[in-house]
């Protein structure tokens, strides 16, 4: 290729095709709708096994919650001085995972990252289910769940008003708003694709349901104009939400006067960590699914590489925050600050701290190498590492800051009981039940959007 007297390499100039295999509009529709159009009796065996497992785990979760409400939170190992433990760890873990979806649909949309179209639907669904899992934990950790309405600012005769200066209340608003807007965003994006399914399915009941939820979409020019306007507005509204939700979650800790919690870098550091864990979870879920659902040409190695790059960037930001926190703990000259951090790294929970550092800071650095970040196996393994590391991050922040408080006589090593793992595994049951239903009955790829970015497509969107 020539420009004036310059010779340009083709691969320098050209942007890679996002969709491979020469797929056309119709191929995409066929590929994506296949799962949803499979008749009920012909459901894939693998899906059935997975669903049975997930649903049983969900049942266990529901029973465990019932027992918790009956018996009280004493069934957990939480005890003085560690009053917050796995319950809040799980809450923050799930909210964090819920970040990638909205980042992909809102921020990457505003940054014109067209590769987002292959993964946004999937990630948004993940976001919604993860936020549902997250919301359960603060709900059940209050113990007396029948008075949980004290949280809400409802006028009542008892003169009970929630404390607006409490970050726990901000949390309720922040996570609630995030959930609502993410759900709207996901649903608005789904409308044209639901209409496609409505027009294709043979089963009458399915036709009725898809028809109901596609809101009379006929794909006219006028519909598209409104749709794109709505999409842009929702993207602009969700962008600050991506930052605000996890910032508010970080305030739960950072507003306290506790060393290890009270530090100003928490809001942006939590946001970076959330995006980090969210992308890792997208990888964990996407890599097997693209094989099983035959989506290799739609979610290509390029998409996987891009996600790995984001994991590397956000993982390094998290590493920066760990480093600055440690430095400031020393620089502050405050003995309590330095004690907390030395205790974290070399105290009784050193194993948890170093698990966190290894999984969040060290192993993601492997993605500096192109060979590794374009390897499916390596990506999958490292994404699991990040998931583990990010769970441990919250564990380290919460438990190591609490278990040795200001009075050495009350120090107590926190040990979980049998119920803690049951609740964590149970929440995965809830997550996967929803997720498998989504994969089975809804289009997992935003068909309308990727049709806009295929090589012969027009540039109408994304």
């Amino acid at each position, binding site marked *: 290729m020539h420009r004036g007297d*310059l010779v340009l390499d083709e691969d320098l100039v050209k942007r890679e095709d996002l969709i491979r295999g020469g797929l056309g509009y119709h191929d995409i529709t066929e590929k994506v709708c296949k799962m949803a159009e499979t008749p009920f009796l012909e459901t894939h065996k693998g899906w059935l096994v997975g669903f049975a497992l997930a649903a049983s785990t969900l049942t266990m979760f529901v029973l465990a919650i019932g027992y918790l409400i009956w018996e009280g939170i004493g069934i957990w190992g939480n005890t003085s001085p560690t009053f917050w433990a796995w319950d809040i760890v799980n809450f923050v873990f799930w909210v964090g995972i819920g970040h990638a979806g909205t980042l992909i649909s809102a921020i990457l949309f505003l940054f014109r990252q067209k590769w987002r179209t292959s993964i946004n639907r999937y990630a948004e669904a993940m976001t919604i289910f993860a936020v549902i899992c997250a919301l359960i934990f603060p709900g059940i950790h209050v113990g007396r769940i029948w008075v949980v309405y004290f949280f809400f600012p409802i006028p009542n005769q008892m003169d009970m008003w929630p404390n607006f200066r409490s970050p726990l209340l901000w949390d309720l608003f922040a996570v609630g708003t995030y959930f609502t807007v993410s759900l709207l965003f996901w649903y608005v994006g789904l409308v044209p694709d639901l209409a496609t399914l409505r027009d294709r399915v043979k089963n009458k009941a399915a036709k009725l349901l898809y028809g109901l939820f596609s809101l009379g979409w006929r794909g006219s020019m006028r519909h598209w104009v409104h749709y794109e306007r709505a999409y842009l507005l929702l993207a602009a509204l969700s962008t600050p939400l991506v930052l605000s939700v996890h910032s508010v979650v970080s305030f739960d800790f950072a507003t306290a006067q506790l060393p290890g919690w009270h530090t100003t870098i928490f809001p942006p550091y939590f946001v970076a960590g959330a995006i980090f864990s969210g992308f890792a979870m997208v990888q964990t879920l996407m890599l097997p699914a693209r094989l099983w659902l035959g989506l290799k040409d739609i979610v290509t190695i390029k998409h996987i590489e891009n996600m790995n790059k984001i994991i590397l960037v956000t993982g390094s930001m998290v590493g920066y925050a760990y480093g600055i926190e440690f430095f400031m703990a020393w620089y502050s000259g405050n003995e309590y600050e330095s004690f907390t951090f030395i205790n974290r790294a070399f105290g009784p929970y050193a194993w948890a701290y170093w698990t966190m550092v290894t999984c969040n800071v060290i192993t993601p650095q492997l993605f500096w190498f192109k060979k590794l970040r374009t390897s499916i196996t390596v990506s999958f393994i490292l994404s699991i590492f990040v998931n583990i590391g990010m769970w441990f991050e919250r564990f380290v922040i919460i438990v190591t800051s609490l278990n040795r408080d200001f009075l050495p006589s009350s120090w107590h090593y926190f040990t979980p009981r049998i119920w803690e793992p049951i609740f964590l595994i149970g929440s995965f049951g809830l997550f996967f039940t929803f997720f498998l239903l989504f994969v089975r009955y809804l289009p997992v790829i935003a068909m309308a959007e990727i049709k806009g970015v295929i090589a012969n497509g027009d540039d109408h969107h994304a």
Partner: protein
Amino acid sequence: MQRLVLLGLAILGLGSWFLGFQADPTRSLYGYLFAFVSVLTIPLGCMVFVLIQHLTRAGWSVLVRRIAEFGMATVPLFAVLFLPIALLGHDLFPWSHVEHLDENLIKKMPYLNMKFFMIRAAMYFVVWTGIAVWFYRKSLAQDANPNVTRQLWKWSTLGIVLFALSTSFASFDWLMSLQPHWYSTVFGVYFFAGCFLAGLAFMSLALMRTSIPLKPDHYHDLGKLLFGFTVFWAYIGFSQFMLYWYANIPEETEFYMRRLEDGWQSISWALLFTNFFIPFFVIMSRHAKRNKKVFAFGCLWILCAHFLDIYWLVMPTSGDEHWINFLPYDLGALLGILALFMVAFNWIMKGQSMIPKGDPRLKESLAFENY
């Protein structure tokens, strides 16, 4: 002619600052530090802009990149301008008065001591000069040989890591340690947000005076970034303030307490409007970003508001109750350093191609549409 005017302004500015120096050397040094850091944030902002463009393989920004490169290439000038701080820093930083340190500051001596302070400052300038010169030279080389692009892409990764660490620690050293008991882990991020705003505002203004074939679409995108980072600055500033206000621990509130007395409270309140609400509403609209006059006003506003932010970070630590009386000398220093920066900027720009004509994404940038 322009250069003579700028040199005249530099002499005028630094000359008037020198009058202040003769009247009260210590107080005037704070003014110098303010001016130095304020103007330095422009090349630093340009530098991170350039690095991000390479890192993300951006297409839209090719036409505006060279201006940012000219901006960042002025960094060596600041190594020279740092000398007064290096030589007279003893008067600026309370931790350097080794004879009257309290227990807390004695603990910090391994980090906060003049020798190590100088070594670190030298390291920052080595890193910044290294990044600026390497990326500037390679970018010029790219004009004739597009394959250089690959090197620019590759090394922008290391560049951004070094940039993040060096600017964070520079902000700890030169700004945070002015109140040596005080600390905040997010301070580096706050400083970075300011740098990026200064760089973007300066670039946008400089671009308006060139003949680069830009479309309103390019200003529109620069405006979006300015808008986004105005919000980001406010977000970081709020997070820091809110957390310290809420916990109300004396050694942490010291920073804000100082800025709520001696007339500083009016500046503290003003920042909320000058650096957030006003720019937020001025450049929010699409029309404002695409209209050169309104956008130029917005950029100029953001740049001045950013200088006010640095003034607010530095000056209250001087302990001067009648700081406003000294304001003309402080502004003299700012004018002088700004003029010197402009001389260097124009000198670097002279005779160079205004666009990276070898960039493989040039065509994409020329055809760029923002809808």
